[in-house]
């Protein structure tokens, strides 16, 4: 079985893939580093979530080619992703994870 020639391409080169991998490794080292440095403990959660979001975005944009592919694929992925995030936040809110302090 052979595939038709894909039209929605324009994939990055191996050099771009290697640069993205280098950035991903650096971000992972930063994540682990931030975890072990006591000075960062006050801002640990937002910093880790930010670094994780950057890694997530890099993989999705470059390795899964959403940056170059049809925006419809971004819609197919982004819609459920937003819904899943909303479900997580709603459940955490309902179960008291964001209880306001008096």
């Amino acid at each position, binding site marked *: 079985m*052979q595939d038709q020639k*894909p039209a929605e391409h324009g994939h990055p080169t*191996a050099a771009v893939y290697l640069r993205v*991998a280098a950035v991903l490794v650096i971000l992972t080292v930063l994540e*682990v580093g931030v975890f072990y440095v006591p000075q960062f403990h006050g801002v640990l959660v937002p910093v880790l979530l930010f670094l*994780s979001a950057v890694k997530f975005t890099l993989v999705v944009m470059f390795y899964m080619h959403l940056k170059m592919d049809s925006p419809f694929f971004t819609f197919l992925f982004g819609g459920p992703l937003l819904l899943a995030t909303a479900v997580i936040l709603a459940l955490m809110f309902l179960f008291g994870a964001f209880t306001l302090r008096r």
Partner: protein
Amino acid sequence: MSHRTSLGLDNRKMAFWAFIGSECLLFGSLIATYLVYKGRSVVGPYPHDVLNIPFTSISTFDLLMSSLMMVLALAAVQRSDMRWAKVWLFSTALLGIFFLCGQVYEFTSFVHEGLTLQRNLFGATFFVLTGTHGAHVSVGVLWLLTLWYRALRGKLTAANAMTVEITGLYWHFVDVIWIVIFTVVYLIQ
């Protein structure tokens, strides 16, 4: 056989993105369950008692590198360089197997330390979330080895690049889910 949809997109690729969207909801529900029950275990072991950050960091690095191998395999198939395609496909599967071995070691050591699925809320939500991810990695490894075997037999060519790309989409999705799990479960304790 692939076909073009009315949007001019490959039908299999579109279907696979829709599948990945549904997987987002599956993992979203599991992550939500973990976070909702976080810190509510009434008996130990607790996360800080058992989680081994240096070990899991190596597993994370392993999975990130497997994603790199996967895109290099796709690039090799697209330029008809089947020799390197075979090397990268096998390397991706091998790194996936290393990740699974790490997970088996981690689960075994946790059980020896008293953390089981039935022990507390942390054990139940942790094992279900990471176990579901591990099951996805296992499927990915089998899929990659199948492609590698086809390549060895000369049945994988540049004309099958879309098949490799879809395999890559699955593998990278497994990787991005681990990026979230590593942060939410391991680093934010």
